[in-house]
């Protein structure tokens, strides 16, 4: 099995390396990927269409908004699947766990975490809201926000973190994020445009169509941030306790 795999991998590698010598050299501005009409269209028109300086955010949340919506749904389904599979197992199965956790929360660690968790959460909100003009956005801000709850669970114990963010509420918040995303898309559908065509939101909000796209992108990012925050924490809580939500790491 291992030998067959090695030979297979080696054959694929030789084929790929043979193909790799025909690629454009590194950093060539005239390479096909850089000189394609799609790239030049995005570079030239993002600022005009949407007023968003960060082209990546504009492409992710506006031009390819449908894609990002279902990416968020995939994150939600992944969290739900992990939770359901681990929760649904046999109740008293034997585990050969090698780590035993039975000590008090450490004073220095908990006090430091008390200091830095607000900073992390404010930074996460900054990353989420500032994703238009600097690197960042819903996914990164949501992960940072979820990491702050994971930090609470690591420094005290899982019960303390679950008291602040119960596991049932995790999935409510995650679903709420998708509802926000799809709701903005449906709103633009009802206003006469297509699904996720944010420019039509200018009909009910007192802004220009470009700024409507700008602000709708912010709303969409907030939806993504909700889902990712909740799912990251739910993933950690499920995986570290084997689905039982107690005796965690």
């Amino acid at each position, binding site marked *: 099995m291992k030998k067959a795999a090695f030979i297979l991998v080696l054959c694929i590698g030789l084929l790929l390396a043979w193909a790799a010598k025909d690629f454009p050299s590194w950093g060539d501005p005239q390479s096909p990927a850089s000189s394609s009409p799609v790239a030049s269209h995005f570079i030239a028109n993002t600022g005009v269409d949407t007023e968003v300086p*960060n082209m*990546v*955010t504009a492409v*992710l949340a506006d031009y390819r908004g449908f894609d990002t919506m279902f990416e968020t749904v995939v994150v939600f389904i992944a969290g739900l699947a992990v939770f359901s599979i681990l929760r649904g197992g046999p109740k008293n199965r034997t*585990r*050969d*766990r*090698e*780590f035993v956790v039975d000590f008090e929360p450490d004073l220095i660690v908990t006090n430091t975490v008390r200091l830095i968790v607000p900073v992390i959460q404010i930074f996460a909100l900054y*990353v989420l809201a500032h994703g238009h003009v600097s*690197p*960042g*956005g819903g*996914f*990164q801000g949501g*992960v*940072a926000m*979820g*990491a702050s709850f*994971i930090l609470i669970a*690591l420094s005290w114990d899982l019960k303390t973190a679950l008291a602040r963010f119960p596991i049932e509420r995790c999935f409510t918040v995650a679903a709420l994020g998708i509802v926000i995303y799809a709701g903005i898309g449906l709103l633009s559908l009802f206003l006469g445009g297509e699904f996720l065509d944010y420019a039509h939101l200018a009909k009910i909000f007192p802004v220009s169509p470009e700024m409507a796209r700008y602000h709708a992108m912010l709303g969409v990012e907030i939806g993504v941030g909700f889902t990712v925050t909740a799912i*990251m924490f739910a*993933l*950690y809580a499920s*995986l*570290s*306790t*084997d689905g039982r939500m107690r005796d965690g*790491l």
Partner: protein
Amino acid sequence: MGLELFNTLILCLLVVVAVLSLWVRDLVVSAVVFAIYSFLMCLLWAEMGAVDVAFTEATVGAGVSTVVLIATVFNLKRKAKD
């Protein structure tokens, strides 16, 4: 020239770290070495100008995925057979 040297160094380290994270038997060590891999990848992407990808890799790859991997190993046997 300086950036190309940096690029080459990180690319060579990447292969070493990728092999190492699959080589070691201890799964916690494997997860930590994989965090190093993610961090090197993040540096490479920041150097190439793909800042959003670099940010995602720094938060997801080097941050949360390491914690989740270790939380998973916590419920499994720590030593792998291969």
